């Protein structure tokens, strides 16, 4: 450039566009971020080329490396309704406060008899909660089955109600139908997964989303999906 001698003052640079952009990004990230509650277990799902994103409206069974099953529903209202039905069936009483707190929990893996105590536990203590053996799913005491059937029925009901309401008022209806998802650690023995799948198929549910992490393209070559 020109050899104009500098005038001695501090060289200044107009940083306005950069700062604008920085604030824009900050705003964007702050508004889109939603803080997740810690899951009771850490599960590391295997990777796959599956590109279907998990629908927002789902009923999820998580299976950890030791074969414990954890149950969660994304829809708070369905979760609450399922809890009420389960409480009635198993004769466990929940206070209003516990019910409210329960809807905010991500997933749980305790016997329903221990659930009130689990809800009352502090968030930091939940991971170490005892006994956390997973939701029972053996044939004698298959609570998982009841959770799935009650939760599924409630979620579908809420979906249909919303749909009817939207159609009644002539609005476009956008919500997704609830889906069943299984999230499982890569190291879990497949037979534990089979037990959960059997619980689903016994309820005549045959379609699932198996949750996987996205595959790095370097590991699999092969022909690209057309």
């Amino acid at each position, binding site marked *: 450039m020109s050899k104009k001698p500098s005038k001695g003052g501090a060289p200044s640079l107009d940083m306005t566009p950069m700062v604008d952009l920085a604030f824009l990004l900050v705003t964007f990230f702050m508004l889109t971020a939603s803080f997740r509650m810690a899951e009771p277990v850490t599960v590391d799902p*295997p990777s*796959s080329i599956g590109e279907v*994103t998990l629908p927002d409206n789902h009923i999820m069974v998580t299976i950890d490396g030791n074969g414990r099953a954890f149950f969660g529903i994304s829809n708070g209202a369905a979760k609450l309704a399922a809890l009420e039905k389960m409480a009635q069936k198993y004769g466990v009483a929940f206070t209003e406060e516990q019910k409210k707190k329960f809807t905010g929990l991500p997933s749980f893996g305790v016997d329903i008899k221990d659930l009130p105590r689990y809800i009352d536990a502090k968030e930091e203590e939940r991971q170490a909660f005892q006994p956390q053996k997973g939701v029972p799913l053996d044939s004698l005491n298959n609570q998982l089955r009841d959770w799935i059937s009650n939760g599924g029925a409630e979620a579908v009901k809420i979906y249909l109600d919303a749909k009817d309401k939207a159609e009644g008022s002539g609005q476009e209806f956008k919500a997704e139908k609830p889906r069943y998802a299984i999230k499982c650690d*890569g190291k879990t023995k497949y*037979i534990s997964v089979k037990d959960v799948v059997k619980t689903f198929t016994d309820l005549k549910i045959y379609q699932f989303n*198996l949750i*996987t992490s996205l595959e790095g393209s370097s590991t699999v*070559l092969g022909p690209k999906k*057309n």
Partner: protein
Amino acid sequence: MAEIAEDGGGGHKGGKKRAKKQSTKIDMTPMVDLAFLLLTFFVLTSTFSKPKSMELTFPVPPDENIKVDNEVKNGVTFLLTKDDRIFYYEGQFRAQAEGDKPATVLEELNFSQESLHKYMLEKNKWLQDEIKKVHEKFERKEIPDTTYKRLVKAIKVDKDRTYTFLIKTDDKATYKNVIDLIDELNINLVGKYVITDIMKSEMELVNAKTGG
């Protein structure tokens, strides 16, 4: 933090007198610092991707009143076991030789590029070639996309020329093995695969191979 007070601030006579040339600029450095700090924090902690998933449909248990032909035609059975090992056999399982057909012998594969992937490419060559042909037609806009989809589907379920893959696991196989195998089948555009229970006789063969 250190601040560089430029221009001296116009003297230290804090009285009523105001310097005429006092600049109206504010030092925005701390604010920008904070903004970038937040930006970095959110960029690093946010996970954009919602979890990905693969959709899978399990078979409806067959109605007991309906007789099904159990003869496996063009079938390949994968048996998954410990240490990420895969065994497979083709066609019908035979514990003993029947007539001119020899007893089933298990072959071994592993999850590497040269083994399973190669095997799948070989088995699936007809399907892949056909789909490629249809795809080329589609690219040249000779067929509309509905026809394209229909043709691809027809190829995938072709009974005589494509294989049906059965996935069976013993009690030592992990979930990752199953997902990896299904993934490999998906990569190879396999249309028909199913996860079913292992038979006792198959288990015995696997155990003989793995030694327990």
